[in-house]
C-alpha cells in the first residue's frame, strides 16, 4: 500500500524527528557519562546516574520505539518496501538491534539510578566503576545510529533476491497490461 504524498510527508517528518531526536538524546547521555567520569564530586556522580535513568526511560526508549515504528511505516508505505533493498534491510536490522540492546540495558541503569538516589555517603566507587559500561553502550549505540543515518541518506544501491523477484513480477505484470490495446470502438483487444 503506497501512501498519499501528504501522508508520506507527514510520516517522513515524524520519522526524521524521532530518529534525529534519538541521536541527540544519546549524545546528551554520553555527555553525562564523560562529565561524570571526569569529576571527583560524589554528589555529581549520584545526580548524573539519576539523570541518566530519567533520560533513558523517558526520552531514549520512547524515541527508539517511535523511530522503529515510523521507519516500518515509511518502508511499507512507499515503493522501497521492507525487504527489497539492502539499505532498508540493514536499517531495520540495526535499528532493531539497537532497540533490543537498549531495552536489555535499561534495567541496569535503573538499578544504579536507584542506588544513587538512596546513597548518602561520599563512597560512590561502585557507581563510578559502572560508568565504563555506560561509555561503551552509549558510544557504540551512537556509532550504530550514525551508520543508520548515513544509510538512509545515501541509499546505497543493491537489491535483495526478494526485491529482484518482486521487480520481475511487476515487469511481467506491466508487459501483460501493455499487450492489450483498445480498438476503434474502445474495446480491449489482445495483441502480440
Amino acid at each position: 500500500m503506497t501512501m498519499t504524498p501528504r501522508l508520506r510527508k507527514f510520516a517522513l517528518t515524524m520519522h526524521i524527528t524521532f530518529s534525529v531526536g534519538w541521536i541527540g538524546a544519546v549524545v546528551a547521555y554520553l555527555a553525562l557519562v564523560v562529565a561524570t567520569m571526569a569529576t571527583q564530586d560524589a554528589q555529581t556522580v549520584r545526580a548524573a546516574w539519576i539523570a541518566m535513568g530519567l533520560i533513558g526511560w523517558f526520552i531514549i526508549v520512547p524515541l527508539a520505539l517511535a523511530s522503529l515504528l515510523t521507519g516500518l511505516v515509511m518502508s511499507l508505505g512507499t515503493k522501497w518496501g521492507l525487504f527489497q533493498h539492502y539499505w532498508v534491510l540493514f536499517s531495520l536490522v540495526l535499528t532493531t538491534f539497537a532497540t533490543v540492546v537498549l531495552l536489555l540495558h535499561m534495567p541496569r541503569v535503573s538499578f544504579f539510578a536507584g542506588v544513587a538516589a538512596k546513597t548518602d555517603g561520599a563512597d560512590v566507587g561502585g557507581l563510578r566503576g559502572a560508568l565504563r559500561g555506560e561509555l561503551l553502550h552509549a558510544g557504540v549505540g551512537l556509532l550504530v545510529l550514525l551508520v543508520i543515518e548515513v544509510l538512509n541518506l545515501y541509499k546505497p544501491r543493491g537489491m535483495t533476491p526478494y526485491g529482484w523477484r518482486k521487480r520481475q513480477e511487476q515487469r511481467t505484470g506491466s508487459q501483460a497490461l501493455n499487450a492489450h490495446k483498445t480498438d476503434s470502438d474502445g474495446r480491449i483487444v489482445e495483441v502480440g
Partner: protein
Amino acid sequence: MGSKEETPRTITLGESRFVASILTLPDGSLAANLLAKERAGPEENTHMADPPPYLDFDSDTGEDTRVGPDRGSATSTPRWVKVFGIILIVLVLLFVILHLTDRGHGGHTPPIERRVQQS
C-alpha cells in the same frame, strides 16, 4: 582543405525573435510557438544546470528505486553489503560475549551490581 569548420552555436534571443517573425505561417502558428518557447527559455534551457544544492528528500517516495547493482544486469550482492554484514555479525558476537562475561557463570546479577549491593 583550408576551409574553416563552422561550429554549431546557440542562437541568441534577438536572433530567435527575428527567425520567428520571418517564418510566420499564414495562420501565425509557427511564430506563436517559437515565441512561446522563447518566453519559456530560462526554464527549458537548464539541461546543463547544476543540481539543486538542497537534499532531495523526494527520493524517499520510492518512485525511483533504481539502486540495484548495475541497474538490472547483475543480481550479485554488492561489496558494501558483504562488509556491513561482517561488521554486523562481529558487533552481535561482541555484544553476546560481553553480555555473557559480564553476567558471570549462571548469575542473574552482574558482578559490579553485586558489589554495589554489598557496599
